[in-house]
């Protein structure tokens, strides 16, 4: 699966979609999907929570392990994907269709990579 070019990426394998100047949608990439395997559980923050760039906003669980999901920027959570909470396998079916949180009032971003830069980064990781 190639990484959509309209998205930005983090080195911790989150994808970021800028839905506006200061609003984003966040999810996990296909690389994350391959290394995590089948997801059986997702822990998300609550609407209204303040997130700080680089800190954990929640975690995902495969059968064997738990992995943190990191906030790519600071801001306020405006929505969480309830469907994903009930059906974590949605992520394995479509990593770029299964968003985790929506945020607004974005400040402080991580170093965000373009799809090409992210692809190069992933090749090095392997």
């Amino acid at each position, binding site marked *: 699966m190639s990484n959509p070019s309209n998205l930005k990426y983090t080195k911790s394998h989150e994808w970021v979609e800028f839905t506006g100047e200061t609003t984003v949608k966040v999810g996990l990439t296909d690389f994350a999907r391959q290394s995590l*395997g*089948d997801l*059986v*559980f997702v822990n998300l923050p609550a609407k209204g929570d303040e997130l700080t760039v680089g800190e954990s906003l929640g*975690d995902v*669980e*495969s*059968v*064997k392990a*738990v992995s943190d999901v990191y906030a790519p920027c600071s801001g306020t959570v405006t929505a969480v994907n309830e469907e994903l909470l009930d059906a974590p396998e949605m992520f394995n079916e479509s990593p770029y269709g299964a968003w985790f949180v929506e945020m607004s009032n974005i400040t402080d971003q991580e170093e965000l990579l373009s799809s090409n830069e992210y692809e190069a980064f992933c090749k090095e990781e392997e």
Partner: protein
Amino acid sequence: MEQKTPLYDCHVVCGGKIVPFAGYLLPVQYSGVIEEHMAVRQKAGLFDVSHMGEVIISGPDALLNINRLFTNDFTNMTDGRVRYSPMCNEEGGIVDDLIVYRMSALKYFVVVNASNREKDVNWMKSHLVGDVRLEDISDSVAQIALQGPKSKDILLKLAAAESIPPKYYTFFDNCDVAGVKCLVSQTGYTGEHGYELYCSPDDAVPLWNALLDAGTATNAAGKEGLIPCGLGARDTLRLEAGMPLYGHEMADDITPLETGLNFAIKMNKEDFIGKKAIEDRGEPKFARVGLMATGRGIMREHNDVYIGDEKIGETTSGTHCPYLKGAYAMAIVHKENSAVGTQVEVDVRGRKVPAEIVTLPFYKRG
């Protein structure tokens, strides 16, 4: 530097994700833990378990030593039988759990955990008495496990019906399976009907391939649906079946009585290493229980278990169980809080997950 088992190349060919485990390179999964787990519950799965340790205890005093070293009673065993037992230290704690195959009155084949092999061999060797010999043959034995409801049908394609052990915890030696000479036992670590096959390392690859071909070929009845399964599914299967694992439900500071292995410890035996210490401890103050999460969250190992503000114990293993589709864990808790039906909370990374004590095993084959 990790070792490869004789089947390493087969795992690579099958797309196994290789990880280090107990000093070996083994597949944690191939197609996915959930798919592999479900295959074993519904059809069949094939496991490389060559990393396990095997020793032969032989001689006129073999039985004497077996009964001294292990807590179970092996006196009334007949040839072709298998028996499970913990092995204790002088304090009554568990050194390892293992299974014993009686080849003859003078020869026993013992299978131990891969991670404890060196420790076990050293322990046993230093506690032998009389006319007995112990030989570590681990490096000359390969082992494959075939588990699941379809396992017998698959084996029947490769071996004569008379060479397939008919009862749980029995075995036949010198069987011909697809032209490979092996010991076949009706044993396993999944909670399903199944077999463990022991052969020489040189025969492992042909045996693995023959089993895989027989299990995936289409015949009049359709495909048997055998797939290779890794360590991940091995763990979820044994946990779902309530089977203990050394280093989790057992350790050198837990006695067999404290971890619910009463069936495998015979206190009326004249003596065994650890007997006095266990007697001196009196009634066990702890018990192993099964927990089922009743709220959102997956309990893992080393999670504290609470009733209100009081910590009553700790989980020893835990995961999402694919067949039962829920979060289950085993825990060792204070005896007085161990009744089935007790409502508890488990601290999962700072969040209290509600759970209930349920009977073990969580899953039992139909």
